[in-house]
């Protein structure tokens, strides 16, 4: 259940206050006067002869009845919460759309849009209005019939987000029924969207943010493994745009890593406002790029993303590590051999890795490990991360038949749950006489198994920055095209005026009743 008029805190507080008032009224009930008569016994007899309540009989208190009836009816009408209809409303369903995209971030645009929205909603009959938020799913902020007081509290939780406007896509999905859409956002986004609006819909404007003069912004920002092939390096791609005038140059960009200014070793200009910063250290830091000179629309003046950690994986080769494995680790630049204490992953026989609380590649034997390949990790038995990636580890290209013939044992794979990751394989598989050692699959398997053990995921595509606007938003923010007039719905009087007047009148009549009772004019 929801309390549409007040919300729970106010409702409960009101209940407590009413309980107090009723208690006081009980305490203030009519004090009976004492009349001393020797005939009290006969009066008692007359009272006993009187029925406690009589439905019939002559009705005598017409004025008192009319007064109380007026109070009750006023309270009842007030409970219905009547509102004055705005003269600007056209009688159709009013859909209020609050665009909280990046266009609303400059200054206090969103706050002003909220105020305008709230005033217009209050001026619209509750059953003919709905309020929609311009987020990804078009969240309904106020359903038809709900109190405007709920909207006020819900709007408090709404903030502008650094993303493009979704008004156009929402408008295309809006119903075909006759309705008036009232838009609160940026004119640039609305101008693009209203071109394809259904003829049954009309668009009006409750608030339009001011255009930003000469806006420039970052419209794309992403990162990819370094084209140079260097391990632990990444290239960052940034695209900038300008609404008017020349686009920013590379010298207009300021680069940061974890908040500290950095200067990329090389920045290449690709044209059309695109730049690539080469060979940045991919060590898990927060890479940021910003326009050195900001403007009135800050939402597209900077962008950030977190780089993956591409530094070489530190591997400790302990006792029992076959020579073939040592050779693969030494040849792979993404792996670095370190002492056991500094290692992220250890390799060795079961005895060598025992007691070391790190992911391990364990070279065992058939006596201690039933299957030739064993992968363990949290949730792996139920279809975890590695179970779907055995092919990616290179096992798909494994010639299991030849390997089984060489080892005189069937070759199988086991996946099970364990607190920490481990990969187990028979040492014989990577022995000098094993066909697996001669196979090109072996170094891929060893390398990718160690990367999986170290928690490194594949990094094959550009990782774009989140919370970034697009070119259209940057251009729309500076859209200075002639814009339609804003049409506020609020009239000279608040729409709640009838409700307030009813309450006031009921209060006055209650006071009159109390005065009449006190004066003994009314029973």
């Amino acid at each position: 259940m929801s309390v549409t008029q007040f919300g729970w805190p106010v409702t409960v507080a009101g209940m407590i206050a009413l309980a107090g008032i009723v208690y006081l009224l009980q305490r203030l009930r009519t004090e009976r006067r004492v009349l001393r008569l020797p005939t009290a016994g006969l009066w008692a007899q007359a009272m006993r002869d009187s029925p406690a309540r009589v439905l019939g009989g002559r009705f005598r208190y017409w004025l008192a009845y009319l007064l109380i009836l007026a109070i009750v009816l006023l309270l009842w009408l007030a409970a219905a919460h009547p509102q004055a209809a705005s003269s600007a409303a056209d009688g159709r369903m009013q859909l209020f759309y609050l665009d909280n995209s990046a266009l609303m971030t400059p200054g206090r645009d969103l706050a002003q849009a909220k105020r305008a929205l709230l005033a217009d909603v209050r001026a619209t009959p509750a059953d003919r209005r709905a309020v929609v938020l311009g987020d990804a799913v078009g969240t309904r902020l106020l359903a038809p019939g709900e109190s405007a007081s709920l909207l006020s509290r819900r709007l408090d939780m709404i903030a502008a987000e650094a993303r493009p406007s979704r008004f156009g896509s929402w408008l295309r999905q809006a119903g075909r029924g006759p309705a008036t859409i009232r838009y609160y956002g940026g004119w640039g986004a609305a101008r693009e969207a209203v071109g394809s609006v259904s003829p049954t819909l009309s668009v009006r404007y409750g608030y339009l943010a001011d255009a930003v003069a000469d806006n420039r912004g970052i419209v794309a920002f992403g990162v990819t493994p370094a084209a140079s092939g260097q391990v632990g390096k990444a290239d960052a791609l940034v695209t900038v745009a300008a609404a008017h005038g020349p686009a920013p140059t590379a010298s207009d960009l300021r680069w940061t890593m974890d908040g500290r200014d950095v200067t990329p070793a090389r920045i290449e200009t690709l044209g059309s406002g695109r730049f690539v910063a080469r060979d940045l250290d991919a060590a898990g830091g927060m890479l940021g790029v910003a326009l050195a000179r900001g403007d009135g629309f800050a939402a597209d003046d900077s962008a950030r993303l977190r780089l993956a950690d591409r530094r070489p994986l530190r591997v400790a080769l302990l006792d029992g590590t076959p020579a073939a494995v040592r050779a693969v680790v030494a040849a792979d630049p993404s792996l670095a051999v370190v002492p056991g204490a500094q290692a992220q992953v250890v390799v060795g026989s079961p005895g060598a890795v025992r007691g070391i609380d790190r992911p391990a590649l364990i070279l065992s034997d058939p006596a201690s490990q039933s299957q030739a390949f064993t992968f363990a990790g949290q949730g792996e038995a139920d279809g975890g991360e590695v179970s779907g990636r055995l092919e990616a580890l290179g096992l798909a290209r494994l010639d299991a038949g030849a390997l089984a013939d060489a080892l005189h044992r069937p070759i199988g794979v086991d996946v099970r749950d364990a607190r920490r990751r481990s990969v187990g394989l028979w040492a014989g598989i990577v022995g000098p006489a094993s066909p697996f050692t001669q196979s090109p699959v072996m170094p891929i398997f060893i390398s990718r198994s160690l990367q999986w053990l170290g928690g490194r995921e594949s990094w094959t595509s550009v990782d774009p920055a989140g919370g970034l606007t697009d070119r259209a938003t940057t251009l729309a923010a500076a859209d200075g095209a002639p814009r339609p007039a804003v049409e506020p719905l609020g009239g000279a009087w608040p729409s709640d005026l009838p409700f307030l007047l009813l309450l006031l009148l009921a209060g006055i009549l209650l006071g009159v009743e109390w005065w009449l009772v006190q004066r003994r004019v009314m029973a």
Partner: protein
Amino acid sequence: MNPAAAPGFEELFDPAFLARLNALTLRIGTAQKGGRLADQRTPARGQGSDFADFKPYVAGDDLRTIDWNIYRRLGKAFVRVFEERQDLPVHILLDVSHSMFVETPPRIGPAMRTVLALAAVALAQQDAVSLMTVGDDMATVMKNVSGKGGIARVAQVLADQAAGGRTGLAAALDRLAAMPLRRGLLILVSDFFDDAGLEGVLDALGRLPHRLLLVQMTRTSDADPALLADLDGDLVIEDGEHDGVAVTVTPELIARYQVAYRAFSDGLERFAARRGATLIRMDADRDVLDQLMPILASGRVLP
């Protein structure tokens, strides 16, 4: 609630008030014989001036009473027999329960003046007056007083009375019936509102051997409560003896009250008629003697 005070001695013992009583007499048809010689007619035969009958002379009769004319005509001696007037035992029972004190002014004032007037008349005609009060219990406060000189004592006894709790009238009358008193006249001065109800009081009165003079202390507003200016709205009506009665005054309630009051009043009246008693309704708001004189001036209070 503090009940109103009874009238003081000076207020009661008013010479002007007492002077107006000289012309009044308190007579009943026939008093019981066996008392002192006084003014009340009795069935007793003896000394007196009122000729009653003849009877044959027997030895020992007073020779002065022989009617010699009869002897001359008939040759037999007859003597004249005279009616002997004696005193009347007058038992006055005054209700001093709270209900007699509850109003402003209270009914006890006119009730005491009524008692004083009746006692003064009785004393003036040499009757024996006893005064009892009844509240929670019955008390004999004065016994067998006669002679005009007793009136001051009556006034003093009355002035000493205070409100005496709830009305136990029926029980008091039962006690009175059991007392070995010479039959006489019982004057009961009360509002007759009793815990036992009117029926209980009337039953007890019916068991008394005395002639009855019932003085009901009333007010005009008893029968017509609309005369009460304060009778309006939500009230608690108290009689000083019971918990108050919470009422909301409506015309319907007043009508029901009037029905109840008429039944009460008619019941008292019918009893008096059936019992051969005299019922005097004394309006507490009017002068006592103005109301008593027309009744007492007729000579006989009771048939």
